């Protein structure tokens, strides 16, 4: 195989691996924005929380209950941590965000920004600010796979495939099921949906929990790849907002497709001009804002 093509494919795979996180996080943001009209700035912090919960379940939880030998591993964490993050998200919605719906959306943005700072502060206080490696990667996902053009870490391949499945399932639930049609209707006209006898405040709380749970899930998936650090979400959320701006708020499929594609673009940019890889997304954001302010998949509002 031509070495150039080989290089592009390899960087593409690594880019796709980043794109996974862009897609899952912007998907959660889009779900939340669609129904609540809230820009959840805390999404990055909840992603960090998911990663830390995985770390805590493995390294600390056992000792806390007096069972030093107990390490709650990756697979249980993949279910438990997102549920815990979702629960935390629902508390934020129920007791904080709900009071702000009648005000300008900027207030809920500021609130979630505050939640971000509190969460980051807490974890910086109790954990190593520069990051702790997650030791719980399952044995079955260690090692590499030969993709023909590169040796690719088995775990990263798992993350890519798993995330594509998750994104597809979420898209399917929202666009093709009864529950999803209620969500979409609630996005359009919550008052009428309520008059039909649907408990909209409950639906809003569960949706916020679901969106934040996705952030927690992404956090668990990220834990074995990146080191678990209090600022891991802060660095990512800026990119995620650029992804959301490019894709356009409120489109489920748009969020997913844009997330994966921008990961790819970032990876492939590395091949041609590596220093630009970190800024290419922002460059695209500027272009999209100038040419199509509603985003590539955005609805005219």
């Amino acid at each position, binding site marked *: 195989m031509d070495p150039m093509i080989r290089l592009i494919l390899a960087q593409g795979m690594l880019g796709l691996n980043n794109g996974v996180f862009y897609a899952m996080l912007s998907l959660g943001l889009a779900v939340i924005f669609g129904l609540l009209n809230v820009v959840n700035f805390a999404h990055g912090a909840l992603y960090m929380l998911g990663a830390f919960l995985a770390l805590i379940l493995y390294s600390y939880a056992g000792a806390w209950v007096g069972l030093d030998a107990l390490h709650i591993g990756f697979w249980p964490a993949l279910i438990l941590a997102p549920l815990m993050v979702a629960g935390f998200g629902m508390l934020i919605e129920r007791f904080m965000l709900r009071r702000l719906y009648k005000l300008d959306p900027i207030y809920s943005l500021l609130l979630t920004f505050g939640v971000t700072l509190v969460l980051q502060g807490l974890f910086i206080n109790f954990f190593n600010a520069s990051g702790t490696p997650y030791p719980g990667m399952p044995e079955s996902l260690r090692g590499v796979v030969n993709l023909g053009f590169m040796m690719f870490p088995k775990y990263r391949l798992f993350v890519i495939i798993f995330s594509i499945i998750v994104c597809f399932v979420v898209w399917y639930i929202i666009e093709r099921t009864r529950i999803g049609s209620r969500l979409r209707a609630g996005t359009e006209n919550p008052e009428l949906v309520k*008059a039909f006898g649907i408990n909209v405040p409950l639906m809003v709380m569960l949706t916020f929990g679901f969106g934040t749970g996705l952030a927690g899930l992404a956090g668990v998936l990220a834990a074995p790849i990146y080191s678990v650090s209090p600022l891991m979400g802060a660095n990512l959320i800026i990119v995620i907002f650029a992804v959301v701006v490019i894709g356009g708020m409120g489109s489920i499929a748009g969020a997913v497709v844009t997330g994966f594609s921008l990961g790819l673009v970032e990876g492939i940019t590395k091949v041609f001009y590596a220093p630009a890889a970190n800024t290419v997304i922002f460059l695209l954001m500027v272009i999209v804002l100038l040419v199509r302010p509603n985003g590539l998949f955005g609805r005219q509002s």
Partner: protein
Amino acid sequence: MSTTTLIKPMLKIENLHAWYGESHVLHGVNLELGEGQLITLLGRNGAGRSTTLRSIMGMVDRRTGSIAINGQEFITKPAHRISPDGRIGFCPEERGIFASLTVEENLLLPPMVGADGMSIEELFDMFPNLANVRKRMGTRLSGGEQQMLAIARILRTGARLLLLDEITEGLAPVIVKTLGRVIRDLKTRGYTIVLVEQNFRFAAPLADRHYVIEHGEVIDTIEAADVEASMDRLNHYLSV
């Protein structure tokens, strides 16, 4: 004001006040209707007819007074309990068809509120136009199709009390005629109906009683039998 209802009232509204934010829109509405009856709320735009329906559904910021359905008080119920507990179907003035849902999804959206709702097949029999556009998105329907969908949607749920807001507004005469047939059919099937209507010619032959609303209160009540004799009064109320 005297009403000669002999049937036990299914819906009885007393001294209903309603507010949107600071603005006080209803100033003590009183009305009642018995099971299987049809009443209309007549009046000029902005008189408070739609707000009366929206108050029943809990879609105003604040409401006081009494709304009894089958003897049960509804004024303090949370909005999402009103439709299921009262077996009410609401068809809003702007029709409320969801643009991001298909016809079928719109039809299936409202949860069931009673056991004896019409089946999808029955509904497509009643509104044949809808059968051909099942998979179409809500936005891509004509006004008439949207109106039929908005009515079909609440008939599926098993609601027995229907609140219909301006269903003939902006529709072609041939569709208005179809809707008249549908309403008459629903009446023979025993539905109880409140009709907010601008088109008196449409409403007159269907109604058991007319309530005239102005400035947020009922200013006159006219029984169906007295319509002929009250034409002058009615013209006065409804002329702009």
